[in-house]
């Protein structure tokens, strides 16, 4: 009974949070709605005996994804009020289509009882991180390795797309500094009286573009 009440509470909170994301005037509020949604979803996961996934959801979504959103929102400077204009124009058509879709999904869910669902995970069943890990490193080793490749792709992509080598910033090349010898930068000359000096070692440097 307690589980039922908790489910209803989490479900209501998830819907409210998602509603905030959809309707928020300020995207900052939207991000907070997202965090709220995911915290409650984590609660739901734990209720469904997916403790590890629940905690992972908090770590990945609240810890990484929400922060990433906030970071981008802070970096780019936009007039968010302007972005809300014209929202009402899409509302009627969107509402009709989406209600139809929802009705269809619910019809599908309620049309027939789902067969073979009657033995929920028992009280003492092992759904811990250890059980998941045992599967991940044996049967599901292939997708695990692929996940590594996907993350590598994301890393390469983010760097390739956004990293810029700026030419207006001075950089220090420590190896070059250490290897520099007095002879490279200093010439001793004995100019004749009235003859003047030309620096023989010095050449005008050009900024290397890469």
């Amino acid at each position: 009974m307690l589980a039922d009440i908790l489910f209803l509470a989490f479900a209501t909170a998830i819907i409210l949070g998602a509603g905030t994301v959809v309707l928020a005037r300020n995207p900052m509020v939207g991000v907070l709605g997202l965090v709220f949604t995911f915290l409650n979803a984590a609660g739901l996961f734990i209720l469904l005996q997916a403790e590890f996934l629940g905690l992972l959801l908090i770590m990945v979504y609240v810890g990484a994804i929400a922060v990433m959103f906030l970071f981008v929102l802070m970096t780019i400077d936009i007039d968010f009020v302007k972005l809300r204009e014209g929202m009402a124009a899409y509302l009627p058509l969107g509402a009709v289509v989406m209600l139809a879709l929802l009705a269809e999904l619910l019809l599908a869910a309620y049309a027939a009882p789902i067969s073979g669902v009657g033995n929920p995970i028992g009280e003492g069943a092992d759904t811990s991180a250890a059980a998941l890990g045992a599967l991940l490193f044996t049967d599901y080793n292939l997708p695990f390795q692929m996940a590594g490749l996907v993350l590598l792709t994301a890393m390469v992509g983010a760097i390739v797309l956004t990293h810029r080598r700026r030419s207006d910033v001075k950089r220090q090349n420590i190896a070059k500094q250490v290897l520099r010898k007095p002879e490279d930068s200093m010439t001793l000359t004995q100019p004749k009286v009235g003859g003047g000096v030309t620096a023989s070692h010095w050449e005008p440097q050009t900024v290397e573009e890469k």
Partner: protein
Amino acid sequence: MFYSITLTHILTLSSVLLVLGLVGIVLNRRNIIAILMCLELILLSANINLVATSHFRADLAGHIFTFFILTVAAAELAIGLAIVTLFFRNRGDIEIDSADRMRG
């Protein structure tokens, strides 16, 4: 554990969440950040489906699937936000409606 809640109820929740995400994409057509957040809602609805089924069928395959979706979602968002940053640098705004250099 649950007294009267069944898999159907949880599927109802995830369907509502999916539709909310889709509505968000339609309504916030101009704001790319909001669209990305709505995509995350859609992924969450799929995750709820998988975890709930896992619970009611006493099968860990759904947990494994969710684990991978979480990983991929983080990677996807990193790429998405990198593209958004690039788009903002080039255009000075993030209105996807104004992304109309190409027509035909």
